């Protein structure tokens, strides 16, 4: 079935630094979504992309519009509240989204 590979699996960031997360797909995907799961388990929607890029505050996401086989999430000027587990999920024309295993992000002072 469809596979979503997320990297890195974990990331430690100093406050104020920038970083990028990536998802690779083993097949062409129709769209991609990014979520952050906080310590209480709530999954918060960050982005939905069918193509191109979107930006929201210090977060920016891109979805490769040509081959549609990877997506990135950039964190700029990391803050403590950015800590959490980030998931990408892709729509591969099958039932439901296929989720990656997540990137655990820890931001420290």
């Amino acid at each position: 079935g469809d596979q979503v590979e997320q990297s890195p699996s974990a990331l430690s960031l100093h406050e104020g630094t920038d970083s990028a997360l990536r998802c690779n797909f083993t097949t062409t995907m129709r769209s991609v979504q990014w979520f952050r799961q906080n310590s209480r388990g709530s999954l918060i929607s960050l982005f939905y992309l069918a193509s191109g890029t979107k930006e929201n505050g210090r977060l920016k996401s891109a979805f490769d519009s040509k081959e549609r086989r990877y997506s990135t999430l950039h964190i700029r000027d990391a803050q403590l509240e950015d800590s959490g587990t980030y998931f990408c999920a892709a729509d591969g024309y099958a039932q439901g989204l296929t989720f990656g295993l997540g990137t655990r992000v820890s931001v420290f002072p």
Partner: protein
Amino acid sequence: ETAVFQTPNYHVTQVGNEVSFNCKQTLGHDTMYWYKQDSKKLLKIMFSYNNKQLIVNETVPRRFSPQSSDKAHLNLRIKSVEPEDSAVYLCASSLGTYNERLFFGHGTKLSVL
């Protein structure tokens, strides 16, 4: 701000019991879902429901069944729980057809003793 509401937050039960989890969305969305998140944090689709059409992930055991009274509600019933059903169950909704932007509830954590 939460707009997908799940109850209960936690449930502990014994093998063989029946359980039911509730989900309600106030977003006016047309499609609702149930996902299961296992102990390794992997999320997998269980059910998608849109306009009285139900799509079932073929890997879901038959003891699981969704129940909907209207498009704002999609409950999950487990007829006879097994130890491997211990997990977090997440309800979600999206505006139109399947797999548009999803909004999740806070989840129901099930522990089967």
